[in-house]
C-alpha cells in the first residue's frame, strides 16, 4: 500500500552514486551537444540562405534527411558504424588521421563523444529548418547595405543574422534542452548506458529503477522530478539570458 516517506527519497538522491553519475552524464551531453548543434545549424542555414547558391534544395534535402529516421534505427546504425573495427575506424586509419582504432563504444570518454556525434547528426537538420524559415523573413536589403559598407560575411553572421534570429534560437535551445534532458533511445541502443554506466542518463536510470531493478516507483518518481526541475530552471534561465542581451 502507499505510504508517505517524507523527504527520504529526496535525501537518498544525494547519496546515490548512480543518480549522481547519470545527472553528471546528462549535463555533459547537454552542455556540449546543444551549443554545438545550434551553432552548426545556424552556420548551415546561413550558408543555405546565401544568394545565388547552386544545388540549394539538394543540400537542404540531404541535411534534413536524418530527421526521417527513427531514433532506434539510427542509433543501431551508429552502433555498427562506430564498432572497434567498424567503418569509422577503418576510414580514420586509412586517411592516417589516427594510427590506432579509437575505442568509440568501450571508453568512457569516447562513448560520450559517440553519443554526442549521433544526436548532432540526427537533429542538426531539424533545427536548421527553423532557422531557414526565420531567415526568409529577414529583409535582404540589410545584408545588401552591410556588403556595401564592407562588412565581412563572418561579421554579418554574428552582428546581423544571430541577433535577428534570437527568438528562434531561444525556442530551439529550449526545445533541445528539454529533449537532451530526457535522452533515452540513443544511449539504450548505442551504448546501453555503458561502459560502467558512463553514458547512463537520468531517463535511463528512471527506467532501470522502475522496470529493470526491483521496482521502486516512489524513488523513480523522485528522480523524474529532478528532470522537471531542471527543465523548468534551464528554460527560465534561457529566457532571462535572451532578455538581457
Amino acid at each position, binding site marked *: 500500500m502507499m505510504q508517505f516517506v517524507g523527504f527520504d527519497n529526496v535525501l537518498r538522491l544525494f547519496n546515490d552514486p548512480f543518480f549522481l553519475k547519470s545527472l553528471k552524464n546528462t549535463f555533459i551531453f547537454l552542455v556540449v551537444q546543444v551549443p554545438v548543434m545550434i551553432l552548426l545549424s545556424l552556420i*548551415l542555414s546561413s*550558408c*543555405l540562405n*546565401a544568394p545565388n547558391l*547552386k544545388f540549394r534544395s*539538394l*543540400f537542404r534535402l*540531404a*541535411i*534534413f*534527411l*536524418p*530527421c*526521417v*529516421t*527513427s*531514433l*532506434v*534505427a*539510427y542509433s*543501431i*546504425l*551508429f*552502433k*555498427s*558504424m562506430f*564498432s572497434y*573495427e*567498424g*567503418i569509422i*575506424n*577503418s576510414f580514420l586509419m586509412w586517411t592516417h588521421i589516427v594510427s590506432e582504432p579509437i575505442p568509440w563504444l568501450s571508453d568512457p570518454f569516447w562513448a560520450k563523444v559517440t553519443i554526442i556525434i549521433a544526436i548532432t*547528426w540526427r537533429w542538426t*537538420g*531539424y533545427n536548421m*529548418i527553423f532557422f531557414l*524559415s526565420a531567415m526568409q523573413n529577414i529583409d535582404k536589403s540589410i545584408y545588401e547595405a552591410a556588403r556595401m559598407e564592407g562588412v565581412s*560575411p563572418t561579421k554579418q553572421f554574428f552582428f546581423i543574422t544571430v541577433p535577428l534570429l534570437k527568438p528562434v534560437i531561444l525556442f530551439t535551445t529550449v526545445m533541445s534542452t*528539454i529533449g537532451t*534532458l*530526457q535522452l*533515452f*533511445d540513443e544511449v*539504450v*541502443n548505442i551504448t*546501453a548506458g555503458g561502459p560502467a554506466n558512463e553514458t547512463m542518463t*537520468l*531517463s535511463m536510470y*528512471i*527506467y532501470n529503477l*522502475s*522496470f529493470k531493478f526491483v521496482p521502486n*516507483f516512489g524513488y523513480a*518518481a523522485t528522480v*523524474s*522530478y529532478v*528532470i*522537471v526541475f531542471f527543465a*523548468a530552471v534551464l*528554460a527560465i534561465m534561457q529566457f532571462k539570458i535572451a532578455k538581457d542581451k
Partner: protein
Amino acid sequence: MDKNKLNRALMYLFLSVFSLISLFPFYWMVVSSTNTATDINKGKFSFGDQLFANISRLSEQVDLGLIFWNTSKIAIISTLVTLLISSMAGYGFEVYKSKVRDRVYGALLLTMMIPFAALMIPLFTLMAKAQLLDTHAAVMLPTIASVFIVFYFRQCTKAFPHELIDAARVDGVKDWKIYLFVYIPVMKTTYAAAFIIVFMTSWNAFLWPLIVLQSAELKTINLVLSSLSSAYFPDFGIIMVGTVIATLPTLAVFFAMQKQFVAGMTGSVK
C-alpha cells in the same frame, strides 16, 4: 583570386561535406543489409550478396509480417484518432467563445512543458489499474489527446475564414456538419502536416511501447530491433534488414509529401 571566391568555395566544400555525412549512414544501412555480420563489423562498404540470406534468417527469428502489422496498426489508428480528437479541440477552442476558454487553454499548454520521463510512472500505474498493460490500447491511449496538435490546429484555424461558419449557420446547417463538411475540406494541408507529425511520432515510439508491451506477438519493430541489437554478439546483417524495413515507410511518407513534412516536423504556422 579574390577573397569572395575563396569564401564561396569554402562554403560549397562545407555544405558538400556535411551533406555527405548526413547521407552516409543511409548508404551504410542499405549496403550493410547485403553483407554478413562479420563484414559489417570490419567496415566493408561495398554491396554484397547476402541480402536474401539476411532476410530469410531474420524471418526465421521473428515474425516480420506480424511485427510490421503491429507497428502499422498502432501508427495508423492512433494517427487517425488523434487527428479527429485534437483537430476538434483546436477548432472548438478557436470558434466557440467562452470566459474560461483561454484559462483552460493556458493550462493545457502548460502541460506540454512536463517531460515524458515524469509522466511515464503515473501512466504506467494508471494502465496497470485499468488492466490494459500488454495491449496495443495502452500504447495508443496516452497519445491520442495531443496538446501539441490541438495547439497546431488552433493556430491554423485562426486563418480559417469564419464567415463560412456564419454563412452555414444562417442556412441552418448543424455544427457537427459544418466541422465535417466545411472545416475539414478547407484545412486539408493542416491535416496533412499534422498527419505527418503524429504518424512519425507513433512509428518511432520506443520508450512507452517498451514499458507497456511484454508479449512477443504484440511488439513493434523498434522494440524488436532494439532487442536484436542488444544481444551479446548482435547479427548486424539481419538487424540492418530490419532498420531498412523500419525506415522505408517514413522515407516514403517524406518523399510523397515533402512540403507538408517540413511544415509538420517544425510545426510551422503560417
